[in-house]
């Protein structure tokens, strides 16, 4: 008996009991659709998190100044200016794992352009900053060396600042006043969106570090070389831990700290966030897989149940088929193909429903979903496997019937 004929018999048998077949498939349909939707939603969430981390830079280490103790109250990280611009250059120069190190000074204040004003955060930076943050200038240009050295009165602005100060008009070559210091806008930064903590990363001004120090932040800092933080980017693929350790060692040396003395700086590392995120998304994926496999399992039991009923109900048919020459194997194949067909049709409907459902969720809930070919193949494979696994027992039972008893069955 060839396969095409077996398939036709199976389809016929399923057509005869349309309602029952549909209800049986429902378990598989729901299971498969659930797998696809959950993987799509989970994948979307994960992709979003990964993107956020990437936008921050997953291989970034931030070195911050140590804290200051005044009258028993300890200030936060960065309250004491212990690290200097030169520490930053030394890190970039001496540690080979490091791609770029960007010392930054941070401040905030009111920014005025014409009759618009806006309160924002500004950073004094070196050109390395843009490299570390993988941030492009989309309009205008970046800083030139002369502007860096000579505390040029130039500024790069983020998208949010551009929108609030200039609306739709081009901000290029406009003069804005930052803490009353007039600076010319030479470029607009690419959109970066929100940070993981929900901060608007586009609400920012960047100026040469010398400009920030000498012109904007004021006299207290003017003479020192100290900076609030150094943003360090580790080479792609290099070991974060070793870069971290070498950097600490270098800073301790430069700060002449004795063994046993505490660090006078803080080192923060986003890889920990990344690891935590990875671990949690793994747990999430595992959870989703567990839920999905439970629903597929239930669907499979449904198939087994219906196939057992079907075998009992069609005992006489089985007897007749045996009487006219079907071998045990023919009967086994027939019922197995029936079960697998049931689960595969359910699987296909489930896949379509899953894809539709994912799109609907993306539309209605506004969640990002990411359909993956892998999840579809996985779901289809699983559905087929469920059919074989749960169809085998009833099929075996059918094939073991004795022809005379099956024929006599009432």
């Amino acid at each position: 008996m060839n396969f095409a004929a077996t398939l036709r018999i199976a389809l016929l048998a399923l057509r005869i009991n349309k309602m029952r077949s549909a209800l049986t498939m429902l378990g598989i349909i729901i299971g498969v659709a659930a797998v696809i939707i959950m993987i799509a939603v989970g994948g979307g969430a994960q992709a979003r998190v990964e993107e956020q981390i990437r936008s921050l830079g997953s291989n970034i280490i931030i070195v911050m100044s140590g804290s200051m103790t005044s009258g028993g109250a300890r200030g936060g990280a960065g309250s004491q200016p212990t690290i200097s611009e030169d520490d930053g250059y030394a890190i970039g120069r001496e540690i080979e794992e490091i791609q770029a190190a960007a010392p930054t000074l941070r401040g905030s204040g009111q920014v005025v352009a014409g009759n618009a004003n806006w309160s924002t955060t500004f950073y004094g930076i070196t050109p390395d900053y843009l490299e570390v943050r993988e941030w492009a200038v989309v309009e205008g240009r970046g800083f030139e060396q002369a502007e860096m050295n000579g505390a040029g009165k130039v500024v790069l602005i983020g998208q949010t600042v551009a929108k609030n100060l200039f609306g739709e008009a081009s901000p290029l070559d406009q003069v804005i006043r930052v803490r009353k210091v007039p600076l010319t806008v030479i470029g607009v930064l690419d959109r970066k969106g929100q940070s993981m903590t929900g901060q608007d990363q586009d609400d920012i001004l960047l100026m040469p570090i010398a400009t920030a120090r000498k012109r904007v932040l004021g006299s207290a800092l003017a003479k020192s070389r100290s900076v609030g933080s150094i943003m360090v980017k580790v080479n792609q693929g290099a070991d974060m831990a070793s870069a971290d350790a070498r950097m600490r060692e270098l800073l301790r040396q430069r700060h002449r700290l004795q063994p046993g003395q505490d660090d006078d700086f803080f080192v923060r590392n986003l890889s920990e966030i990344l690891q935590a995120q990875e671990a949690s998304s793994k747990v999430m994926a595992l959870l989703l897989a567990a839920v999905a496999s439970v629903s597929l399992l239930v669907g499979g039991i449904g198939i087994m149940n219906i196939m057992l009923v079907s075998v009992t109900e069609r005992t006489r048919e089985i007897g007749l088929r045996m009487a006219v020459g079907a071998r045990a194997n023919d009967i086994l194949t027939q019922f197995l193909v029936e079960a697998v067909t049931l689960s595969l049709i359910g699987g296909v409907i489930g896949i379509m429903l899953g894809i539709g459902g994912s799109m609907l969720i993306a539309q209605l809930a506004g969640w990002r979903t990411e359909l993956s070919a892998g999840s579809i193949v996985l779901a289809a494979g699983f559905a087929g496997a469920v059919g074989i696994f749960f169809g085998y027992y009833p099929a075996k039972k059918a094939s073991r019937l004795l022809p005379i008893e099956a024929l006599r069955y009432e």
Partner: protein
Amino acid sequence: MAEALIRVEQLAKEYRMGSNVVQALCGVSLEIAAGEFVAVMGPSGSGKSTFMNLLGCLDHPSAGRYWLGGQEVSQLSGDELARVRNRKLGFVFQHFNLLARTSALDNVSLPLLYSGMSPPERKRHAEQRLSQVGLAERMDHHPAQLSGGQQQRVAIARALVNDPQLVLADEPTGALDSRTSVEIMALLQQLNREGITIVLVTHEHDVAHFAGRIISFRDGKVIEDKPNAANDAAALLQ
């Protein structure tokens, strides 16, 4: 003398019912030649059904031997018996045993499905047999759309479709009214005249008397085996 189509020697079958052993058939020996029309009679429990099951290769004998068309079949495995049923035997049952919601044509071609025949060949054979039993016009009808007599004709066409050496009919008229019964018997007689060997099980004397030989069973043994001057069913219908 030519080899008989059916030859059984000391054929026996016992069933185990708990601790009891029931002798359903105790040492039956007989021969049936090709072209015969044999009725097997007897009350229930006489062993006639057991005998039919053994003739039909649906069951294994406990003892004794059975040759069908010169081939000893009493020692064959389950799959080999399935092949014998597929190639050499045709069955007609009391309750027709047609597949529901399946056309007459597909019902008739069912045995050919298991002999590996191509779909166009299957169709051709099945059409030919349906015409032979007078149902050329109803090939696409489902069993539910056919009368009892027509359903049994479909079943007979199915029994014939693989050109069997032997047709076994188990109470073929048991579920039919008397006129339809005679019609079915007329069909069987006609097929027999065309050369097909038929063994019929019945407990009705009227039905048995359409056969050319009557074998009576009681308590697992043959108690009578005599030729019969067959009634002509076709003439009776006139």
